């Protein structure tokens, strides 16, 4: 957005240009990649961590970080399915399970928000702690196994297509648009930017900074709950050991690739969406190209580091 104009046109639009370039290269080099079905699959695959990345963008702009999202996704998805298993009517079960998953996500995010703002625990430490706690609770609840449900309504929802677009994909795109409005057009969004830009200035400008920070974590938790619910619906099951594993890193990486400043104060949700897609396309095309699965994370890592190297940074001298 124009509020955060950088001196160089190139830097501002770099993520978009990178995505376009990547798409062109991949479409030309691989016939499997350019099939519409494959492209849709990519968007579905990235949507789960992508939805979380939107919340993560708010947290990072506000000067924080949330490492617990992967574990929280597993916990909320698991509790959602556990609820479903206790209710016979499929539709009722589905609705109650959704509410439970959202509530667990929101609650987990709220715990993070309280630890950071009321307990004054540094975000990295607070969410590192809850990351372990949420995962451990999930393992205990399921005896470290995979939880499945035969609720047909859940399966239908998870596989639902609207105009041939998978529901999670659609959710990701709609939420990106809504998030952009929240960030650029509301007081909350402006206050998040002010908070991450300089907490003291924000406080002296009569902004309730702890509350603003709290809501960034709670929002991320809520989106994580939603993501957990959608992920469970994909195969009507959730694995306590692998669900959401590494999602926190994917979400952070997507935000950073999309131009959000790690030190807070500025960022964009459209950029994060681009970051999410870039990561998804790379994973997909590496498979298409037949690159060893062992090397995929190395390529991802290179992209993340390169994105940060290209970001404008504060000059060291004054």
């Amino acid at each position: 957005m124009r509020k955060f104009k950088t001196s160089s046109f190139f830097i501002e639009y770099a993520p978009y240009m990178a995505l376009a370039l990547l798409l062109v290269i991949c479409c030309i080099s691989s016939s499997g990649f350019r099939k519409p079905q494959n492209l849709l699959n990519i968007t579905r695959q990235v949507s789960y961590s992508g939805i979380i990345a939107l919340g993560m963008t708010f947290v990072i702009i506000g000067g924080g970080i949330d490492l617990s999202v992967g574990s929280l996704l597993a916990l909320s998805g698991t509790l959602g399915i556990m609820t479903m298993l206790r209710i016979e009517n499929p539709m009722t079960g589905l609705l109650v399970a959704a509410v439970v998953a959202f509530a667990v996500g929101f609650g987990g995010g709220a715990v993070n928000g309280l630890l950071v703002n009321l307990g004054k625990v540094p975000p990295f430490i607070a969410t590192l702690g809850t990351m372990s706690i949420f995962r451990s609770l999930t393992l205990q609840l399921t005896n470290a196994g995979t939880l499945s449900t035969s609720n047909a309504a859940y399966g239908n929802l998870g596989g639902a297509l609207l105009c041939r677009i998978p529901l999670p994909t659609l959710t990701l795109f709609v939420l990106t648009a809504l998030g952009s409005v929240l960030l650029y057009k509301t007081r909350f969004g402006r206050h998040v930017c002010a908070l991450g830009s300089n907490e003291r200035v924000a406080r002296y400008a009569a902004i309730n900074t702890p509350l603003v920070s709290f809501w960034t974590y709670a929002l991320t938790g809520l989106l994580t709950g939603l993501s957990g619910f959608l992920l469970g619906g994909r195969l009507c099951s959730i694995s306590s050991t692998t669900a959401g594993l590494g999602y926190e890193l994917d979400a952070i990486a997507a935000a950073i690739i999309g131009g959000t400043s790690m030190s807070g104060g500025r960022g964009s949700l459209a950029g994060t969406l681009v970051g999410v897609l870039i990561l998804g396309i790379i994973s997909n095309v590496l498979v298409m190209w037949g690159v060893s699965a062992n090397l995929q994370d190395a390529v991802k890592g290179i992209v993340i580091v390169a994105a940060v190297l290209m970001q404008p940074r504060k000059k060291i001298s004054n």
Partner: protein
Amino acid sequence: MPPENSQNLLELVDVHKSYGSVEVLHGVSLALGEGDILGLIGENGAGKSTLMKCLNGMEQVSGGRIIYLGSPFHATTVADAVKGGIITIPQEFNLVKDLKVYENIFLGNELRGCLGLLDVAAMRTRSKELLDELGAAVDVDSLVEDLSVAARQMVEVAKALSYSAKLLIMDEPTTVLNHDEVQVLFGVIRRLKANGTSVIFISHKLREVLEICDKVAVLRDGELVSFSGIEGLDEAELARRMVGRSPSQMFTEKRLPAADAEVALEVSHLSVEGLLKDISFSIRRGEILGFAGLVGSGRTELAETIYGVRRANTGCIRLFGKEVKLDSPRKALDSGIAYLPEDRQGTGILTNFSVASNVTLSSLKRYCQPLISPESEIKAAQGYVEAFHIKTPGTETLLCDLSGGNQQKVAIAKGLDCKPSVFIFDEPTRGIDIKAKSEVYAFINSLLKQGLACMLISSDLEEVIGLCSRIAVMREGALAGELAGDDISEEAIMYLASGVHWHTSH
């Protein structure tokens, strides 16, 4: 003074310095011999710090020459300058609070023994020697965090000595020291001089410059207006050279509030544990009350308590006769109290926000319907840009691209946009140039005309005396007294602020 024919340690020949297209130093020439103590004075924005930065390697001159020890001087980093023996003690100390005294003294210059490991014993011994040389009773093993400000200053000086400094630049070294501590520091400076070290002493305190320096250079708006020996000069003459005209011209006729003006702000028996003791005062509509006092006397803390950043333990605040409970800046602003913080970049403005976003930061609610309307924001910001003559390419320009004076105007606009009835100014003209300064004075006067009640906290005595018809003086968290009308004088204020008669204490 060294004989005239002795070789100069440092010589500046027609030094120019520009930032972009703006020239801030216009041909400064001066010379400094071994063991000379040069006083460098000038108003904020006169170019003192820029000149200093050209000497300590932080900046390079854009024109002219610096000759140091007989050869051209080309330090491109601070480390270069330090290696050459030019050491700067900045106003904000450059010490790591979590490290011990000796660790700080040798920071970046650690002594190493066998295997390249730190030679702690040698560093401790050497630190002790250096501090003894200064006559400073500082334990080399205590953490810098636990030291008094004066002791920290000694650690800075010891650090400079550990580099065997030939030229020591001290930026406002006495602002945080009390009278006795200043005398100790002067003793140290005289000892350095005796050892042949030269000192550039940057200060606002003319009396101290006259006491300690051999030569004095006066900068005004980037120009060297005078450079001479100290003999025959007095404070009044130095002040005249600094300002270039009699100080009173900056200020217009003082406005007195109407006799029947109602009391806008009334503070009674306000106390904050450890910071403020039983403070009571009142300000009427259209009146400005000055707050003078030394650094750390509790003036900013008082402002922050009224503004709701700090909680009061006892006492009450009334606005237009009605008691208000102000426990957050939001409540203070909503009740009509605006605050311009002293630390502009640290608490006043967001440097990576645009002019418009800064102006509406505290009053954003008015621009939401319910989503933020950028058009109304820009329109409001445009109004302030025109009214305050804010020099900016546009309302979407980021604040980091504006000068200090223009940033300050934006900070004032931010407060005004909340439509306050009481405005607290904390050091409103610190670090801004003369022109912006007089503009700020004009705003304050126009606010008074509109019936606002103002608090003016300032360490610039001339400013408080020039603007206020009533001045409250604070000392150690309490009101030491209030002066009005003809009782106002620099001596009277300093007496109340320090509790000592300045002229008799020398």
